[in-house]
């Protein structure tokens, strides 16, 4: 997938333990228990935002805001140079005898250009970072993770007691547990 970030992919990894939840309260509690036991949760996939989950599994603050700021600044500079070239250098037009340089009439263009670049830039970089650009292959752990189920993915390590982790998930409300190796899932 070229430019896409491979670290987010679930393929080419150690075995992944998958737990399926149907209730968000139980999920939050289970995530707390798992984190408390020192188990490193790779990610949790939910069909809608579950408040508080991000803090529990230690999601870092998104850098999207900084990206937005940079995109906005870029848009602003782009628009100022565009108007300057078009309206001052290349083809000045006399509109009601107003001056051509840096007048209030520039502001709507600058504003809209900033907003446009921010919105498109954020959209692009968001999809890029989440490897959701065009041509992405379906990589769902569960078809219903976009509908009503919440999926916990835990990457196994050599020191991990796998059966204990699975037991822990089951006793904390997982309705199903599976293991995932390179795209193949088996219920355990």
């Amino acid at each position, binding site marked *: 997938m070229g430019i896409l970030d491979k670290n987010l992919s679930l393929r080419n990894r150690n075995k992944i333990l998958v737990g399926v939840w149907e209730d*968000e*309260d139980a999920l*939050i*509690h289970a995530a*707390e228990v798992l984190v408390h036991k020192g188990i490193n949760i790779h990610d949790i996939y939910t069909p809608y*935002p579950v*408040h*508080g989950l*991000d*803090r*529990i599994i230690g*999601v*870092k*603050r*998104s850098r999207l*805001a900084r990206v937005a*700021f940079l995109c906005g600044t870029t848009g602003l500079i782009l628009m100022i140079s565009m108007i300057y070239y078009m309206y001052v250098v290349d083809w000045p037009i006399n509109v*009601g*005898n*107003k001056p051509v340089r840096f007048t*209030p*009439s520039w*502001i*709507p263009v600058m504003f809209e250009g900033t907003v446009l670049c921010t919105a498109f830039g954020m959209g692009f970089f968001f999809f890029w970072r989440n490897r959701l650009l065009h041509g992405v292959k379906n990589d769902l752990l569960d078809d219903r993770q976009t509908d009503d189920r919440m999926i916990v993915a835990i990457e196994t390590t050599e020191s991990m007691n796998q059966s204990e982790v699975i037991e822990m998930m089951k006793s904390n409300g997982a309705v199903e547990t599976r293991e995932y190796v390179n795209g193949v899932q088996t219920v355990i």
Partner: protein
Amino acid sequence: MGHGHHIEIKQESFTIPAKGKQFAIILMVVGLILTGIGIATIDKSGKSGHNATTTEATHGKDNHGNGHEAPASHAEGHDNHLTANPPAHTVEHVEEHGNVDTEKFGPRMEYKEENKPWMTKIWANLLVAGYFFTMVSLCALFWYAVQYAANAGWSVAIKRVPEAMYTFIPIAFGVLMIAVLLGKNDIYHWVHYEHLHLKPGQPGYDPILAGKSGFLNTGLLFGLPIVLVTVWVLIGRKLRKLSLQEDNATKGDTFFFKKSMRFSAAFLVVFGFTISIVAWLFIMSVDAHWYSTIFGVYNFATSWVSSIAFIALFVTYLRSQGYLGLVTQEHMHDLGKFMFAFTVFWAYIWLFQYLLIWYAAIPEEMMYYQIRFEDYKYNFLGNFVVNFVLPFAFLLMRSAKRNPKIMVAIACIMVMGHYYDVWFMVFPGVFGLNQQIGLLELGIFMLFVGLFVYWVLNQLTKRGLVAINHPFLEESVYHDVGV
């Protein structure tokens, strides 16, 4: 969501801390003293400033007059006026085109000494204060209604604060009406003009003011706002009563919530149609020849953002005193976002009122900005810096919105800045040139802030601080904006 640590929800009853009471009283006393000094130092020789007399050449030679003085002297003024220096931009045009008919370009401003009773300054200041706090309290009610209409959950934990704030409407409106009653002849030159009862063709007859007399007349100036404020206050009282009934009802009963929602929706409709009318009557009519179709929205933006700043200040204060235990940094962050968003909204409206008038350059619209931009340049641009650039720069960062000290500082700047904004809408229109903020302005502002703070804190003591039976209370308690 009962995750993690369970948060216990319990009612809180507020008593004003001694220091809070002291603070409000000190503000009022210092405000009164400054007002006294301010009044004592007004130049009472009869000339309290210069006045901008505007005439539009397109109206014909004799058909002008704005009612500041007797028609006879108007005619004289007009003759001078034809030879007076045209404003700078007209000069430019003349130089560039040589043969341009200067009469087509804009109203020519003629500033001259004008006799205004020195008391006018007091009435105009009271008008600003009364108007500002009426609108701020009204926008608190608007805030409250928006939360219901939008089915918002996060704000339930702080909903008693705007609920207490809008009880200030009658007080502020009373002051506003007193100021208008006592100062109307000198604040509004159209009131003066109305008393002249001029017929078309008479010297001093003003076709613009005559054309607007269907709306700009003394009967409407008093009648309409009283009706509107009565409607607002009645809906506000109803909402407050429903909120109290909900506290005493059983948990899980959504009857009062649904009823509040309907009244809120009704209020939003009333508010949307009426807030502009109040802005036109009290503030825009100061420059009665001028009009701006966005003026009501602009006034709304100013008062709405100050109202949010006041809500943030009260919530921060209550939290610092150990109340509102259910309110967390997350709620403050959302209030910060509200302040930030509507700061941008204010700037948007501020700019576009100016931009369209600047672009079209229609004489009857230009006059408002001509005096403000050419003779009050620093005030005009300073207004923008204080009300937009500073809050925008400081509130852009997430960490700033979550820092109570920065929030309080910015909220204070915004409240003062927007009060100044209203002042700046009124004073150049009433007094013309050379008006600046002085001790009188500062004193009246402090007096009103003190009164407002004391009133709101007192209202907060009258019921529990937590809307204990609100169906969304739990959602608000566990509100989280994420990492």
